[in-house]
């Protein structure tokens, strides 16, 4: 591997963003350093972005929640004069491997989703104040904000020029949000998405592409006014937050990763990783004040941070490790107690943030293009929030009865109230609802099992695990399953898993990850976009892409 992509950062390291905090309103400036691209070979001109820019944005959004709960409105602006944002950097895309492009898009999509959801989840509304050109991925940034303001200076505009210019899609939610969120009429959307030049001023408002176009002279004042108005309409949560300190981790030669609560044993030869999440190593905080005092060290927050970092790390840096197995070890009662404390205090801003953070982290698992097997072993603590890992897996295996020479407590699953609503998937229903789509009454019935110790026979009976094996079969069955799994085509696995994981209702989120992304990824491997004479390679040469004219 050439270089490990590190998702850990903090404001002292930012090259591309800065935030001005002023009480309830924060202003987020995108000011990309064109010489600070993540890789060699391109300059991030005109506020264009690469993965490195997005890693910082993700950090900004996360810190906004935890470190600045006093902020109610975040105004996204450009730090440059004539341009809001030119979107993803084309040279970067042209030079990137297919796998990198796909991973890049997935991560940027997740980041857009998370600041879009910050209003509902965390009482933080993102609004975009657009001055200058706002093209492609730039407009997609704005689309994920819940209010869009455009200056009416007769040149500033919004556009999605990907199709005509680059022969790819506005794939970071663009097409989906235009129709599903902005509810732009489909024929107008068709016009909008097939022209290079954007739409400006009043027409942009008429077409619902922006919420407001404001005369240039008054723009800054009106933006401030709107931000104040929005802030006034939202309830205050807290006056100060907690600090998210640096995340300690070690990576060994063979790729294995260790944090305080999470460890990953990587086996590159057999293309598998075993990920262990540990139960609480500290007692339940006595009060919400104690929770705040624990800061970033409270168990579930630390677990979520470490787990999220690991997911991102493995996705980007261990491309051939195609099978992830989840296991847990620890005291299930303690897991339940920690979760119960947060659920009981979910009106408290920090408890609320931690629960939503676990939800988001689990969503990252759901859209991870790796085969996932959850191993419910003896001594494990698949309870409440950790039990979600079982149903996020493509399959689950559970130990049944005692194993020779193993005196750990028998494998058991414990359901909690949290499993019935606190951690919905992208389809907006719970993992249990998704799992038992045909039997909503079974999900209801499962509520009577909350807190029960469900050993293998009950877990299997209740449909909570795929297989339960005793001492005799366990090792062989797991080995054979894993060997078989990693022998399949990774592409077919990714496609199959992505399809099977999201039963049930379509949401904007499932449409972005399921439909938009899948089409984009297909286009990414087609010569019309990425071939030697395709649009991405020829971009900037003045010559158009040489397209095969066959409709497929």
């Amino acid at each position, binding site marked *: 591997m050439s270089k490990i992509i590190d998702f850990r950062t903090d404001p002292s390291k930012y090259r591309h963003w800065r935030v001005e905090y002023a009480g309830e309103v924060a202003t987020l400036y995108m000011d990309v350093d064109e010489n600070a691209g993540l890789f060699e070979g391109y300059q991030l001109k005109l506020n264009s972005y690469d993965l490195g820019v997005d890693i910082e944005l993700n950090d900004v959004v996360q810190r906004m929640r935890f470190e600045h709960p006093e902020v109610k409105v975040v105004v996204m602006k450009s730090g440059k004069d004539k341009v809001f944002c030119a979107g993803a950097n084309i040279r970067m895309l042209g030079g990137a491997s297919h796998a990198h492009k796909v991973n890049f898009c997935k991560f940027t999509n997740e980041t857009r989703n998370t600041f879009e959801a910050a209003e509902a989840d965390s009482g933080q509304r993102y609004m975009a104040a657009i001055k200058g050109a706002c093209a492609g991925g730039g407009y997609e940034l704005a689309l994920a904000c819940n209010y869009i303001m455009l200056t009416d200076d007769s040149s500033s505009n919004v556009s999605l020029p990907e199709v005509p210019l680059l022969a790819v899609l506005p794939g970071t939610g663009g097409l989906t949000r235009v129709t599903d969120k902005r509810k732009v009429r489909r024929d107008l959307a068709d016009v909008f998405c097939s022209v290079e030049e954007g739409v400006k001023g009043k027409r942009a408002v008429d077409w619902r592409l922006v919420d407001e176009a404001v005369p240039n002279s008054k723009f800054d004042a009106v933006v401030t006014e709107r931000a104040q108005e929005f802030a006034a309409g939202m309830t205050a949560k807290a006056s100060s937050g907690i600090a998210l300190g640096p995340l300690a981790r070690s990576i060994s030669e063979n790729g294995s990763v260790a944090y305080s609560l999470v460890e990953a044993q990587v086996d590159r030869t057999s293309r598998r990783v075993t990920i262990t999440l540990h139960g609480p190593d500290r007692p339940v905080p006595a009060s919400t004040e104690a929770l705040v005092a624990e800061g970033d060290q409270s168990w579930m927050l630390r677990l979520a941070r470490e787990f999220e970092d690991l997911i991102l790390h493995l996705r980007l840096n261990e491309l051939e490790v195609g099978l992830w197995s989840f296991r847990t070890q620890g005291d299930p009662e303690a897991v339940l107690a920690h979760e119960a404390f947060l659920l009981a205090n979910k009106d408290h801003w920090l408890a609320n943030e931690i629960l939503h953070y676990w939800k988001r982290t689990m969503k990252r698992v759901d859209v991870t293009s790796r085969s996932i097997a959850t191993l419910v072993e003896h001594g494990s603590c698949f309870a409440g929030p950790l039990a979600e890992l079982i149903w996020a897996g493509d399959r689950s295996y559970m130990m049944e009865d005692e194993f020779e020479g193993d005196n750990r407590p028998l494998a058991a699953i414990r359901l909690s109230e949290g499993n019935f609503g606190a951690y919905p998937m992208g389809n907006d229903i719970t993992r249990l609802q998704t799992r038992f789509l045909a039997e909503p009454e079974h999900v209801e019935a499962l509520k009577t099992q909350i807190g029960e110790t469900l050993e293998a026979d009950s877990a299997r009976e209740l449909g909570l695990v795929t*297989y339960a*094996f005793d001492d005799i079969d366990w090792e*062989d069955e797991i*080995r054979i*399953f894993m060997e*078989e*799994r990693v022998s399949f085509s990774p592409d077919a696995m990714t496609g199959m898993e992505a399809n099977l994981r999201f039963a049930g209702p379509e949401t904007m989120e499932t449409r972005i990850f399921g439909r938009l992304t899948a089409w984009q990824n297909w286009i990414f491997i087609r010569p019309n976009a990425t071939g030697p004479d395709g649009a991405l390679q020829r971009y900037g040469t003045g010559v158009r892409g040489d397209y095969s004219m066959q409709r497929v």
Partner: protein
Amino acid sequence: MLDLINVSYDTLIPNNVGLSTDKRVLKALEKWHPGYINWWNDLIPDNFQKSLVYLRTAVSVDPKGWAKFDYVKMPEYRWGILLAPQVEGRTIPCGEHAGQPAWQEVPGEYRNMLKRLIVIQGDTEPASVEQQRFLGRTAPSLYDMRNLFQVNVEEGRHLWAMVYLLHKYFGADGREEADDLLLRQSGSDEAPRMLGAFNEETPDWLSFFMFTYFTDRDGKMQLESLAQSGFDPLSRTCRFMLTEEAHHMFVGETGVGRTIERTCQIMAENGIDDPYDIEKIRSFGVIDLPTIQKKLNLHYTLSLDLFGQEVSTNAANAFNSGVKGRYMESRIDDDHKLTNATYPVWDMVDGKLVRHEVPALTAINMRLRDDYSRDAAGGVGRWNKIIEKAGIAFEMKLPHEAFNRKIGVFANHTFNPEGNHISVAEFDKGVDEWLPNKADGDYIQSLMNPVYEPGVYASWIAPPKVGIDNKPGDFEYVKLHMA
């Protein structure tokens, strides 16, 4: 130290695989055992179960002396699990993994393919016992009855061999499949055996001999190709099964041979020169040679169908993955990968038979079938020697492989035994001369009267040249329990 040559009797199940230290598999097999015993007891008529049969039981896998003979009641037979000794440093003989060390555990990637092959093989073993279950009642001699039961108990042991592999290497799935092997029944409407040929009853002893000669030989070829498997336990299991299989084919070959011999003898004694003087020949209670030829035609062609489609992707996958080899793979002088090799395969072009070259990888079935035909021709030659010696102008022949086929390129076309493409009308006209009809069957059936006196043989069959285990001619091979 584990004794892997001599059979251990310290568990209920004799074995040379160290079962007493493999609690996991021992437990699974012991759980399966009662179901097997029930299957056996429900199958074979009761008076034979209680009879003492002079059987060989495997005591070692040493090719020089692996069996001992003694009287045993069949339900008490020690069905054991016997693998040929492990060959040090054995490698995968063919396909993309050729040259790598043979697998001692199931490779996850090929688990399902291996399981399917083992289940299909396993399904045929008890099937033939089911097909032959009533033959004891019409045995032409105690010698033949003993041979029937020997074949039966060994087919039972072959089932054990496959069940062992399923239990040992395929976990819960494997146990389920092993249970299903006892659930299916030859000829059942509910749950028939997997291959068509194993759902026909074996109605008479000539059919039994033909079956053991032709259909067991298909089994032999399948075992030969599985003996080449890169999955070592399967290879070792099949290698030992082959030593037993030889006896089954001996029973078939000598059975048909003795039938021919008796017919020739009667013809000579009564001055009949014309082998087609069927009525006269039959009047002496023997089976005329043309009818024997018809039986041969039927059983040979049914067995050819067991090889499946001439061009097969499944077979190609099995070979390429190293799960299954060719007949005598190690003695074939090529790259054992068949990267660019071709093989001639039958095809029909404009109503004519042609052989054309296809990628050899896809023609694995065709090649095995060709090997089979060559192998099957040997015994036919020896039968003709008997006829020749008697001075009768008649020659037994394997029909052309296009004749009477239901599977492969020849299916849905009509051919005569010489391999000429003929019309349906022509086929219907000739079929009575080529395949046994109802009258032939009725006649053979009329001869099926039991002979239970030591040293005495039914009218239609000659005694063997030598006894089993060198026993004298009047040896009581079965001490019948007559209740």
